[in-house]
């Protein structure tokens, strides 16, 4: 080992220097590290990966539409990231525990989130609609990178319980600059905890290009913490599945954490409140349209004769059905009773808040009796 470690090139923006199993035009290529992890993937599995991605894209499209129609306060689109989200999430066991960020719509879909779970938080009805223990997936995290530490702590618990489960954290290229993420890697490495970090490098943190966060590939940081890492094509669902299987297997065997940088692209705005035309090139977006994660699987399935009209029609019908369910969940949502705003602050009685609740209840009741007197 030399005594001076110097980045050999400015690789942070090199989106081609990635491990890959499917080329953008749908050629199945070989990768010496990844191949062994997807040998069982047959046409039916590829079809189901494709179907998941189509359904996730449909949830996303529906979310954007619902926001534009005023049914949701905000939406954080995941278009373009279906490959990394579905591919990595499909590698989990159901008893693994996942800590997603707010954009991991595809991860939550694979984990078993219900239609309402995608929209009620963005509608402002609840911070979390599902019980994290029902799908072993934490409430999507909004504080950038904070969940990486939660995954490590959860993994420390797994170690103490002596099971072979794995915890995982999803975060983005922007989060890679956060102290929490770096501290999480120190802790995970120090304790050799069974945790997988998935860094979805979608090239943009709102308006900041990844080069503001990193002058060297983000995956290159992990080895410095003592964590093996892999840089994969995040638009290649098969490579993402393979990489995640490698990382999970590594953790399950007691070898500690692993890190995956999935190189992808945020095709939409940061959220529906954002205007990416102010900071990025149309040409760049066009280039990435040519690397669509769904199109390349479709091309491969077609080439293999596994993309029949019946299959395509069924997937489209399933997507429409899910989209309708998501829409119905948003339109049919009901808000909690006003007094419910005070629910669940504490697990046990709290004299201060209990007193406020008593007062607020009486205050609300005052309107009810006024309404009665007025004959309303």
């Amino acid at each position, binding site marked *: 080992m030399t005594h001076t470690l110097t980045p050999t090139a400015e690789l942070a923006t090199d989106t081609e220097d990635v491990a890959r199993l499917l080329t953008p035009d749908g050629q199945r290529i070989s990768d010496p590290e990844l191949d062994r992890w997807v040998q069982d993937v047959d046409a039916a599995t590829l079809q189901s990966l494709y179907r998941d991605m189509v359904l996730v894209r449909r949830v996303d499209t529906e979310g954007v539409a619902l926001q534009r129609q005023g049914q949701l306060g905000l939406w954080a689109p995941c278009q373009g990231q279906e490959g990394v989200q579905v591919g990595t999430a499909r590698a989990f066991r159901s008893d693994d525990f996942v800590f997603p960020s707010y954009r991991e719509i595809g991860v939550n879909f694979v984990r078993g989130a219900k239609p309402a779970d995608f929209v009620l938080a963005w509608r402002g009805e*609840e911070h979390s609609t599902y019980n994290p223990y029902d799908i072993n997936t934490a409430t999507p995290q909004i504080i950038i990178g904070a969940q990486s530490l939660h995954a490590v702590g959860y993994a420390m618990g797994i170690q103490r319980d002596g099971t072979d489960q794995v915890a995982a954290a999803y975060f983005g290229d922007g989060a890679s600059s956060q102290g929490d993420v770096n501290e999480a890697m120190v802790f995970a490495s120090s304790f050799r905890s069974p945790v997988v970090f998935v860094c979805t490098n979608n090239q943009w943190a709102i308006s900041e290009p990844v080069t503001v966060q990193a002058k060297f590939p983000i995956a290159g940081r992990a080895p410095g913490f003592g964590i093996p890492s892999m840089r994969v094509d995040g638009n290649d669902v098969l490579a993402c599945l393979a990489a995640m299987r490698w990382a999970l297997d590594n953790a399950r065997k007691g070898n500690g954490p692993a890190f995956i940088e999935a190189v992808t692209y945020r095709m939409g705005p940061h959220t529906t409140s954002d205007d990416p035309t102010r900071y990025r090139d149309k040409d760049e977006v066009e280039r990435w349209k040519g690397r669509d994660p769904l199109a390349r699987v479709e091309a491969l399935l077609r080439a293999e004769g596994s993309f029949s009209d019946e299959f395509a029609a069924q997937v489209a019908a399933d997507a429409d059905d899910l989209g309708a369910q998501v829409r119905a969940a948003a339109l049919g949502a009901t808000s909690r009773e006003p007094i419910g705003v005070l629910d669940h602050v504490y697990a046990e009685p709290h004299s201060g808040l209990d007193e406020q609740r008593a007062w607020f209840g009486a205050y609300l009741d005052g309107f009810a009796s006024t309404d009665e007197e007025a004959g309303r």
Partner: protein
Amino acid sequence: MTQLTMAKAINEGLRRAMADDPKVLVMGEDIGKLGGVFRITDGLLDQFGAQRVVDTPLAEAGIMGAAVGLAFRGYRPVVEIQFDGFVYPAFDQIVCQVAKLHYRTRGNVTMPITIRIPWAGGVGAAEHHSESPEAYFVHTSGLRVVAVSNPQDAYIMLRQAIASNDPVVYFEPKKLYHTKGDVDLDADLADAPPMGLARVAREGTDVTLLTYGSQVLTAMDAATAAEDDGVSIEVIDLRSISPVDYRTVTASVRKTGRVVVTHEAAREAGVGAELIASVTERCFNYLEAPPQRVTGHDIPYPPAKLEKHHLPDLDRILDAVDRVMDRPNSLTGHEEWGQPEAGRGAAVREGLL
């Protein structure tokens, strides 16, 4: 009953909680072999092993975030923040995660985390080692905040904090680590006064003196001194500063009609401000005099050689007692200053107010 220092009482509280519940683990910097810089975790590594007594990397956000994950997994982490002034890197995890996860998940995820903070000044320490950050946590919904003043409370309230399904910030005054007191090590939590109850440390009839932590001892000294002067002070050790036991507080203020609050922390938007606002709302018609605060100055914590001029001592408390008793005091002849410790005096002199 056993005579123990507060440090030993906290140590015994941890030991007992860990023995009672295998899900309890302690984590922090230097808490293993060293037993913590204050030796609070002394002997725990030998007794419970490295899986439950965890020396962590030097990263407070990391410690707190990992504790959140452990709580997700069903553990009851007891986190040691090495010094009061070191808690700020963990502030985001405490405020955004520890305090909010129960609310965020509609009660599905509990955060039974105890955050132990060696706390406050008067020990001649270096910068950042003597701070009183309690108001930040009191202001944060979802947390409970307690501050102990004697070995028995330290022992029982730590066990209660660890047993609580809510996150508890547990302030332990460094200045009192080596003070001794009787501790009932066999005490049953079911028989102990709840963590949220205040304690009337000394009964009195003229003035209610509200305080917590090491300032309880100064308040007791002030009450003794005032007695010689014919003033009867009721000292209330709040113990819990979030929530505050206003039942006990208001009963006292309605009896005495006069209230003084003292704490080491700075005055502006401090716990004293909240206490006086709440007492005034509840007891306005019983008050004989404007409530008074005796606090640290509104300054960064000063160098150790100067801390005696910062910390509210017995004489400053008695001066405030004289104010509520309408006796000659430091404001006499300077009534236009209002509260000298609020720094208005200079502004008045300069004609700015």
